[in-house]
């Protein structure tokens, strides 16, 4: 006789226990420390901070450890934690022009004041698996520091801007936008149409993979806007706050960020001379792929305000912003694992009824056919 299954609570507890054991892995292998993850898996840590919207490399490393390396799961942990933190105030805008540069390149000029500083990048490596890394060998040493300090690195786009060749950083909205308070998507619900500040916030937190695909689609012709990498810079900037009581800014620390300025095809119309347009990307740590993709998508989403035709997915504001958050996406996709047997039961009931009616109709039709046949037989016999 069927007995209803109970004991959901016990099952969950056992699942948690098994998860903890799996997370630790083989006991004989040394336990991964948070410090190791932070320093040796720094690019994963950077991604977790960027999408988690929280600058704390140690917490991000802890999240990666707890999540067994699943980046989206780690982002979830960081976001949920972020939510419990008290908020004091907004910082002053970061002055990326005064960044302590680690890496700075521009594809639009062969050379620029300050030079092309390659920094620690995978770009020129040959992607050959290095099996010597399987054994812990010597600790590699970086190059000797140069004798001359780095020259000042003025922003490439500012130089173009001085010639009037490119729109200002705030785009067409210019001075009006600079005065307006930016919104905050972590406090207020997003509504459409969204202003650029809101869009950029959503993109900064958005999933790197999704933005990469959207940015890629613009390059392949789905809303092509002829991008050039005007400048990409990675390094440390100071974070300043302006407490009312003091009346002057105070530095509260440094953070590592990566910033990308894309230069895109010129706009302009009958009342304005043609100029280059721009797209912008920003992320925590060294997150080049993310900020480049973000800049491409930012520019694509500006199609409406630049008077361009919007007919590709990357230009569709609602499409991009509704689907770029990987917490929303993974939550809803994985919710399909939750029990849906009541809804499914409803569908089963209807489908059975429809099938019954279908076969009844088919039977009646074939009956009529048979009867017709027999009638004509009778007639022919009569």
């Amino acid at each position: 006789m069927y007995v209803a299954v109970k004991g959901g609570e016990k099952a969950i507890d056992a699942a948690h226990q098994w998860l903890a054991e799996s997370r630790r892995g083989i006991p004989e292998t040394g336990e991964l420390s948070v410090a190791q993850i932070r320093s040796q898996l720094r690019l994963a840590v950077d991604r977790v901070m960027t999408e988690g919207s929280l600058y704390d490399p140690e917490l991000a490393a802890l999240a990666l450890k707890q999540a067994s390396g699943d980046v989206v799961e780690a982002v979830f942990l960081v976001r949920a934690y972020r939510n419990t933190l008290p908020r004091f105030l907004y910082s002053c805008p970061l002055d990326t022009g005064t960044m302590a540069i680690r890496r700075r390149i521009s594809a639009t000029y062969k050379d620029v004041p300050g030079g092309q500083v390659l920094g620690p990048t995978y770009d020129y490596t040959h992607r050959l698996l290095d099996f010597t890394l399987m054994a812990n060998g010597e600790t590699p040493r970086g190059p000797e520091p140069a004798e001359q300090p780095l020259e000042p690195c003025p922003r490439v786009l500012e130089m173009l801007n001085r010639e009037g060749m490119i729109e200002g950083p705030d785009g067409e909205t210019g001075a009006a936008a600079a005065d307006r308070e930016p919104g905050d998507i972590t406090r207020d619900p997003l509504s459409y149409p969204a202003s650029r500040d809101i869009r950029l916030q959503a993109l900064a937190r958005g999933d790197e993979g999704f933005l990469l695909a959207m940015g890629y689609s613009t390059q392949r012709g789905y809303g092509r806007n002829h991008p050039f990498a005007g400048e990409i810079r990675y390094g440390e900037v100071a974070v300043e706050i302006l407490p009312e009581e003091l009346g002057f800014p105070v530095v509260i620390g440094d953070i590592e960020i990566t910033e990308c300025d894309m230069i895109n095809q010129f706009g302009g119309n009958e009342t304005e001379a043609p100029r280059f347009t721009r797209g912008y990307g920003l992320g925590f740590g060294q997150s080049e792929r993310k900020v480049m993709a973000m800049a491409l998508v930012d520019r694509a989403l500006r199609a409406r305000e630049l008077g361009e035709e919007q007919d590709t997915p990357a230009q569709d504001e609602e499409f991009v912003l509704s689907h770029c958050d990987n917490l929303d996406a993974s939550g809803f996709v994985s919710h399909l694992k939750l029990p849906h047997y009541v809804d499914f039961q409803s569908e089963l009931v209807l489908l059975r009824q429809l099938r019954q009616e279908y076969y009844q109709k088919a039977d009646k039709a074939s009956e009529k056919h048979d009867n017709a046949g027999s009638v004509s037989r009778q007639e022919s016999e009569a």
Partner: protein
Amino acid sequence: MNLQQAQSNDTGGYNFAYLDEQTKRMIRRGLLKAVAIPGYQVPFGGREMPLPYGWGTGGMQVTATVIGPDDTLKVIDQGADDTTNAISIRRFFARTAGVKTTEVTTEATVIQTRHRIPETPLRSGQILVYQVPIPEPLRFIEPREVETRTMHALQEYGVMHVKLYEDIARHGHIATTYAYPVKVNGHYVMDPSPIPKFDNPKMDQCPALQLFGAGREKRIYAIPPYTRVRSLDFEDYPFEIQRWDESCEFCGAADSFLDEVITDDQGGRIFVCSDTDYCRQRQQQQQPAVNEETCP
């Protein structure tokens, strides 16, 4: 137990019911607006909760906002108290709010539910909190938020009946069996969340307050007590609820929503009440003297 006592309990360093008071205030304002405009979707600044989006965060935020230390909470999923997610959510509130929890519908003051309305009729003073995945009933035909907002404002609901017409033309029946759209207070068309259409009539003139939370989509809406709620239909194809030929294997109920349970791989199946509390109450009434252990 008062609020201070509740907060001094070991709630793991979190505020009562996890959300900070500012957030609760913000959500309460949204709820008041929702109650004042029955069926209208109010946007709110939803927060990340420790459960994933899509797993009930909207319902949880509503519950966290309305629950107090003296409340008794019941949490069900698919009508059952012991499905994994219901347990997970109930534990969450037990830990962060220290409230009393129950599986008995009549004892609860706040009931959070996923995809069912309890069979036991609710009474005045109870709050039913629904978990909603997609709050927008027009989403199936219009993906754009800007357009659906306008359609609601102008009561342009022709497309809803187009869908029903199409079902009848194709299948001979209206083919929507859950998340069946309703008209609330003669104005807004609302998605009641993926409850089976079997449950729709329970929303009409319900003495309890019904609140709906969509965490991922960041919308809340409400049906105040004793509000008119009508399921959309045609005059010659009126709204009908599901019926079974069978009755519950355990309690014999012929008027409750039944789950189909496959018992062997030869197609053997039985039907049992989806609402576990309703079923248990009926069984206890029928055989009050029987030992607890032998009751399934």
